């Protein structure tokens, strides 16, 4: 620690070189921060509240619906506290491009999804209005909906009396308690009862059940017990935790982990070469100075550590600035776009992985120049041989 000022001075000996290298490191870790946050967000499901929820959907496929008659049977499984259900609606608002998830839900849906908060009087208004809808705050903001507005939702799957018009009134607006989960606000829910009575095609069917358990530790047993109910029927179910369900769904879009790893592989390989070159140059230029350090009594090991610290410091400095930038830019872009572009915050996991990467890269890059500095012979170095 006492040599910090010495290392610092050595680092900024050539200001142009160090700052240019630093900026390259910043760019690399900015990219790492953004991509890895996206990867983490993509691969992780909902937060703590989701841990004791199971999704029960058709084993055959996500588009297959389940009979509502399963409800009492699922409710009677030991360890199940509450069961809600939902039916996919797939309506569009004005233009197919304005896609957002919308589905009909049971009355107790918001009792189970405790990670959403709804003003009680609004929730009451929603329950009392047969053709009411409840929308997320983000979605309401995006389309400028207010309580009392009528949304001319157009059905794509389920017509009503032969027409695709499903006008709904905004009765309530819900908000995600955890702001990291703000993406979940881009949803609209309507009453399952109204949907079931009014649509032309399908009766007494649901797309999935959401089961709240007494304890998350019970998930495996409860899931098995629920799946056993419908075994060998034509509506076999598959129960999994909410996060597992979301993950397997997300993975079907793309293997984000693989893409991120491939890109970052290319970036860090380039970075190694770049900073390695800088450090080699820095040591080459300073050979006489290093020799003087040794002359006045610095040990070989200390000189090695000095150069090594310099290289680690360079990378860590740039890396922290890069990750910091990512942490500022991503919520900034999300806020500026008014929730249209959803970008995650940089999670703790990414900071930890990033920090480890910085130190490892710093050590790898510094190793050769540091060894060279350690092995310097004072006489040769001072003589310029």
């Amino acid at each position, binding site marked *: 620690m006492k040599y910090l000022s010495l290392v610092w001075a050595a680092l900024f000996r050539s200001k142009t070189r160090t700052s240019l290298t630093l900026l390259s490191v910043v760019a690399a870790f900015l*990219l790492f921060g953004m991509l890895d946050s996206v990867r983490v967000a993509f691969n992780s499901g909902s937060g703590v509240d989701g841990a004791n929820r199971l999704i029960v959907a058709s084993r055959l*496929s996500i588009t297959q619906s389940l009979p509502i008659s399963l409800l009492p049977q699922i409710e009677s499984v030991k360890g199940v506290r509450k069961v809600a259900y939902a039916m996919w609606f797939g309506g569009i608002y004005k233009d197919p491009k304005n896609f957002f998830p919308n589905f009909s839900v049971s009355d107790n849906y918001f009792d189970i999804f405790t990670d959403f908060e709804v003003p009680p009087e609004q929730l009451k208004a929603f329950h009392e209005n047969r053709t009411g809808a409840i929308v997320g705050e983000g979605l309401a903001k995006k389309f400028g909906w207010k309580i009392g507005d009528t949304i001319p939702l157009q059905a*794509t799957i389920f017509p009503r009396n032969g027409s695709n018009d499903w006008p709904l009134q905004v009765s309530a607006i819900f908000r995600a308690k955890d702001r990291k989960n703000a993406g979940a606000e881009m949803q609209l829910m309507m009453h399952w009862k109204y949907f079931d009575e009014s649509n032309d095609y399908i009766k007494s069917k649901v797309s999935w059940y959401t089961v709240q358990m007494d304890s998350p530790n019970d998930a495996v047993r409860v899931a098995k017990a629920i799946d056993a109910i419908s075994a060998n029927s034509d509506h076999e179910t598959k129960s999994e935790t909410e996060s597992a369900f979301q993950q397997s769904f997300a*993975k079907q879009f793309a*293997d984000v982990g693989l893409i991120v790893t*491939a890109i970052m592989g*290319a*970036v860090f390989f380039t970075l190694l*070469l770049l900073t390695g*070159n800088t450090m080699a140059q820095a040591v080459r230029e300073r050979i006489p100075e290093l020799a003087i350090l040794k002359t006045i009594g610095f040990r070989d090991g200390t000189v090695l550590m000095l150069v090594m610290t310099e290289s680690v410091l360079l990378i860590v400095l740039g890396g922290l600035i890069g990750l910091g930038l990512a942490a500022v830019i991503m919520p900034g872009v999300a806020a500026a776009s008014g929730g249209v572009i959803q970008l995650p915050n940089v999670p703790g996991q990414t900071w930890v992985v990033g920090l480890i990467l910085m130190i490892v890269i710093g050590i790898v890059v510094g190793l050769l120049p540091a060894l060279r500095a350690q092995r310097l012979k004072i006489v040769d170095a001072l003589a310029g041989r």
Partner: protein
Amino acid sequence: MKWLTDIGTVLALILGLIVWIMLPWFLVLAIALIVAIWLFAARSGRLSLAAARIGIASLPQRWGASSVIVVGIAGVVGVLVAMLAMGEGFQATLNNTGSDDTAIILRGGSQAETNSVITRDQVPLITSLPGIARGGDGKPLMSPELSQVINLPMKSSGTDANAQVRGVGDAAWAVRGNMRIVEGRKFAPGLRELVVGQGAQHQFRGLEVGKTLRLANQDWTIVGKFATGDAHDSELWSDAETLASTYRRTAFQSITVRLDGKSGLKQLKAAIDADPSLKLDVQTTHDYYSKQSGNLTKVINVLGTVIGAIMAIGAVFGALNTMYAAVAGRAREIATMRAIGFRGLPVVVAVMLETMLLALVGGVLGAAIAWAIFNGYTVSTLSQNFSQLVFQFKVSPALLWSGLKWALGIGLVGGLFPALRAARLPVTEALRAA
């Protein structure tokens, strides 16, 4: 004064880069020609060339530092080309699917096959409509179809993903001209038999010809493999009636018809609009599939460009670093050249040419790597029909070209400031130093 020119240079550079990336190929060629003519014909051009030759001759001595430029730019171009090739491949797959001779009929307002319902009593009404081509036996060439999404394990991860089983009518093979059985045979109507697309077979486990598959607790045999080279390659096909009875489906989802000549679509559309009992949308299959590619392609392109741009910024700093070091290392040499009569311009151009050469090598390297690894690389994603769509990366010449343009752009920025420094080097001081 000096910093004023610097700011001016930066602004001009930013503008120049934007124009450069947008420039069509023939203008680039024209610029290259003009530069070449100037280099060989004009006196200052020949001097620049001579100066550049000296710099390039000393490159091997500095090859460690120079490789920073080459590898840095290769990385940028490689990632950029690979990302854009993914978007291009996805778009190409959907754009190649369907044709202008066939049309798809869906329920009004349903947008996608998954959402559509066509009841059985509508089918005979559609049969008699004008605009549908007829086969040799006088029957209309139309195939009422339904699609069923099933869960199958992916080869890569072993986890379940959605696959699409399409039940087709007898005329399906005649309606779509491009279906080829490459292994085994077609399924027989009325039997629980499937033919699988080559893309689906590549992506999912257990789809080899001869294997059996359990669908809705019934055994289905895979009797053949087909190739279409488009989005249908991701599907499994079977007899519509058998599939419908297996899944207790009473209605169809879409009807694909072969159109009767150029005016077929217009006739068919007019006939459907005229019949109030048919609330249906009709469009050519080419239009239908092309529309599906829009959003994802845009997302991939934006993402690829943003990632490429951040990497490019990193590479620019790397290039600047290397070229500043190169200019500093050759300070005496450059000062000598200036002393014996080389003026500012040839010195600037010489350093620029050197950087651009390194950038070009990096660009070619990156593009070549992207092409070698990713051209034809097969992946899949969730399509609009809630099932896996298999497609291949497509590294097109246009992408390679824009990769090279990015490389030269990075070289331009990375070389310009060191070149200006070289030209401004105070001759006497540089000659005296070290």
